[in-house]
């Protein structure tokens, strides 16, 4: 049986197995409502992790706690061995943790290419890579090309369709040259071929060494992309293992089919 | 600094009474800012407007200022709904309320104040009524009637407002609109209409608060400015949108201001409420996401 309960697995791991991202008994409440209840998860470097769960199960809250947008009350998050407690979101991004937002949050007053430029200026440059202006310019164009938005480089986000905004979200997250990228429902509303495009893009990124956590509702995409699947229901992790095994888990079936 | 028990007791009682009045001044902002999330910093200007309206009718016809205010409440309500409509169409709808909405109200504050200056000049105006002048003496307490009467009517006003907010459909819709607009729509209630009504009520309270003000002290157009900080301090301290909280916070500020004024001098009093405000804001855990 490969469905493992999170904390047990972490306990049995040795130091050498500690992942790129280590979440230990993470808890978050909003007033009386428990959004996350003791989530533990280890993501090794290079992993392709799929995170699924019904609406309201806490997936986005988990992402927010990992990335520093929200502060967790209990538990801890470690990235590359470094504890993230108290670190503001921008510092976590600079360490190599990037995320796209479920509801796209573009910078409305800036062109697409300027949107992409921001992470390059503030994250990549802050790491001291010493890029020249033409380099940055080229990189912005490259990123837009990868998501198929190069034609609209000078446009404002308001001129984009919902689908294009999701692609911009993804491109902006990629622009910070992360070690770990969390893609939060980037594929909602995309056509079959567009989904294939994004999946190919994410696979390419993964080949280049970027660890990816894919949060999705589109099962086909999740199943084909993930090497490992985690299921979140009502703030708790109920399954964690090989995708096929997880989907056959009776608890998971119950959660999805009621 | 001579410390005398008499002075202390009088200062505290005075603070409580003034606090009641402050609550009436603030309850409008508790609705517009605490519940509707509209930063109407022009609210004090409407209060001053209320003062002058009371003044005109009192001087011309000899009508009691509070009676004037009650009669004028519908007019102020309509003014409030009109202003909200402009605010909504120009800013809320476009999502620009943070910078431009604020600037809008700031402009309204100025226009109101300056128009009053142009019309009435900068002389202090005061009203006349039978309860302005006499003072109640009770043991060591000296309670001027002109402060006691507004205090009592203020509490009445707040009580009525609280009843409206908790017992009537409109009132509960107003409370709901700040929390869940979608749910309201599903109930076939237009959130914009609810907010318009709420803002109208908020400005309507200014009519009464203005009458109270000019009963308590002589008024000239720039008097409103010292209330801007007070009003938001009380609203924030009182828990944003809670009327009982507003009353308690108002009395607290009233007492501290009164004590400061009595023992340190009136020139320090403005710093009290504004200082309170800063302290409250600094200590509050409100961050980017928080409220």
């Amino acid at each position, binding site marked *: 049986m490969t469905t493992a309960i999170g904390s047990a697995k972490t306990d049995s791991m040795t130091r050498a197995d500690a992942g790129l991202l280590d979440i230990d008994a993470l808890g978050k409440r909003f007033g009386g409502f428990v959004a996350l209840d003791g989530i533990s998860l280890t993501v090794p470097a290079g992993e392709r992790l799929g995170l699924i769960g019904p609406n309201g199960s806490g997936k986005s809250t988990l992402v927010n706690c990992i990335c520093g947008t929200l502060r967790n009350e209990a538990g801890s998050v470690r990235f590359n061995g470094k504890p993230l407690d108290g670190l503001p979101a921008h510092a976590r991004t600079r360490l190599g943790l990037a995320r796209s937002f479920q509801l796209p949050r573009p910078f409305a*007053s800036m*062109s697409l290419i300027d949107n992409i430029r921001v992470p390059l200026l503030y994250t990549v440059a802050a790491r001291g890579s010493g890029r020249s*202006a033409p380099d940055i310019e080229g990189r912005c164009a490259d990123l837009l090309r990868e998501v198929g938005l190069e034609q609209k480089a000078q446009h404002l986000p308001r001129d984009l369709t919902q689908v294009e905004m999701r692609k911009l979200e993804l491109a*902006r997250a990629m622009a910070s040259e992360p070690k770990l990228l969390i893609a939060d429902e980037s594929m909602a509303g995309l056509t079959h071929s567009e989904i294939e495009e994004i999946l190919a893009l994410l696979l390419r990124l993964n080949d280049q060494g970027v660890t990816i956590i894919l949060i999705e509702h589109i099962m086909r995409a999740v199943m084909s992309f993930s090497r490992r699947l985690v299921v979140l229901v009502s703030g708790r992790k109920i399954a964690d293992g090989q995708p096929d095994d997880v989907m056959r888990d009776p608890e998971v079936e119950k959660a999805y089919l009621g | 600094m001579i410390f005398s028990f008499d002075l202390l007791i009088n200062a505290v009682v005075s603070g409580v009474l003034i606090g009641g009045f402050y609550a009436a001044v603030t309850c409008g902002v508790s609705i517009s800012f605490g519940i509707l999330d509209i930063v109407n910093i022009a609210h004090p200007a409407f209060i001053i407007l209320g003062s002058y309206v009371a003044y005109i009718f009192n001087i011309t016809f000899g009508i009691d200022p509070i009676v004037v205010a009650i009669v004028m409440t519908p007019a102020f309500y309509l003014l409030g709904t009109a202003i909200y409509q402009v605010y909504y169409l120009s800013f809320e709808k476009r999502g620009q309320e*943070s910078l431009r909405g604020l*600037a809008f109200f700031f402009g309204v504050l100025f226009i109101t104040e*300056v128009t009053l200056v142009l019309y009435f000049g900068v002389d202090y105006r005061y009203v006349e009524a039978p309860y302005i002048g006499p003072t109640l003496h009770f043991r060591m307490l000296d309670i001027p009637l002109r402060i006691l009467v507004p205090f009592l009517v203020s509490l009445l006003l707040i009580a009525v407002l609280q009843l409206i907010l908790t017992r009537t459909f409109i009132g509960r819709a107003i409370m709901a609109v700040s929390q869940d607009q979608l749910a309201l729509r599903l109930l076939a209630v237009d959130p914009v209409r609810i907010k318009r009504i709420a803002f109208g009520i908020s400005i309507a309270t200014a009519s009464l608060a203005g009458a109270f003000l000019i009963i308590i002290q002589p008024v000239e157009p720039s008097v409103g400015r010292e209330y801007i900080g007070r009003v938001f301090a009380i609203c924030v301290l009182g828990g944003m949108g809670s009327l009982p909280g507003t009353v308690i916070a108002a009395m607290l500020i009233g007492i501290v201001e009164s004590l400061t004024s009595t023992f340190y001098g009136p*020139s320090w009093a403005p710093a009290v409420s504004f200082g309170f405000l800063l302290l409250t804001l600094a200590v509050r855990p409100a961050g980017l996401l928080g409220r």
Partner: protein
Amino acid sequence: MRTPVFLLIWLVIAAAVFAGAVFAGNDYVFFAGYVVMQYVVLSTAWNILGGYCGYVNFGSAAFFALGAYSTVAIYKFYPLPIPLLLVVGGAVSGLVGFGMGYLTLRLRGAFFAIATLALAVVLETLVVNWDYVGGSRGAYIVRPEEIYPFGNYVRYLFLIMMGLAVGAITVARLIERSRLGYGFATIRDDELAAEACGVPTLQLKLIATTISGALMGMAGAPFPYYIGYLQPSSTFGLEYAVNSIAMPLIGGTTSWVGPLVGAVLLGSLQQIATVTISSAVNLLIVGCLLVGFVIVAPNGIIGLVHKYFQRKPDDFVGRRRVDPDAPEAVP
């Protein structure tokens, strides 16, 4: 256009304006011009925090007054030359700006705005109760009659304020075209997303409040010499707050051009109105223009100009570039 070129061009323009004023022969031009230039600085300073970052500061008067009162405090000790006073005023107000930012920038926009108002009143109360600078009675500064080689002291003051104005717009433009400008814009657009992109929002906001405060303080430093008699009620007056908000909003908040246009137009209008009608009507005009523009033309005059030349429903302006040698991108 590289910054030194920009600076040079504007210094030349300023010199020309000064020469023109001298030629006009009427000393009133210098008195009025000083106020207009002062507002150029105040609006530009306000816009750095308000227009670029989206954080509304209602307390402009406080920073301005702090600069003025620093001058008074030093004057009682020993009257320093004005350029040094500028530095002191800027330093004091910059420090207070930093402090205010530290206390309040964690707050949501609306709370921040209210906090700035509160701070202004607290500072005013402190000054009113500080007898060394005259308290509520006010303070006198004796303005020298003449100063070599400008002759009339007011001409000297006007020149200084013009220089400061040129400096202010240069700083604003420098910020716009730098990485800082991008950072500020992201804070205005979406702070959460900005953080996620690696923008250290708190740091940047602190930089904004410090620079903004410092410039306002510098605008206030020569004021006691200009006015001769300094009173807290008028120095801390809400008129400064209204103008420093109205001018950028009317001119346009997205670039250094807006506050300049707004200040020159509105400032001149006010000078004329104060003399011909009354100062109360003057404020009424400001209030009405502010409300009018904010409702009808949210992007100000430069927004309107852009709309006219673009004939597109797109009413936004200002493409910022990191590389100052590259051509401006046309939206």
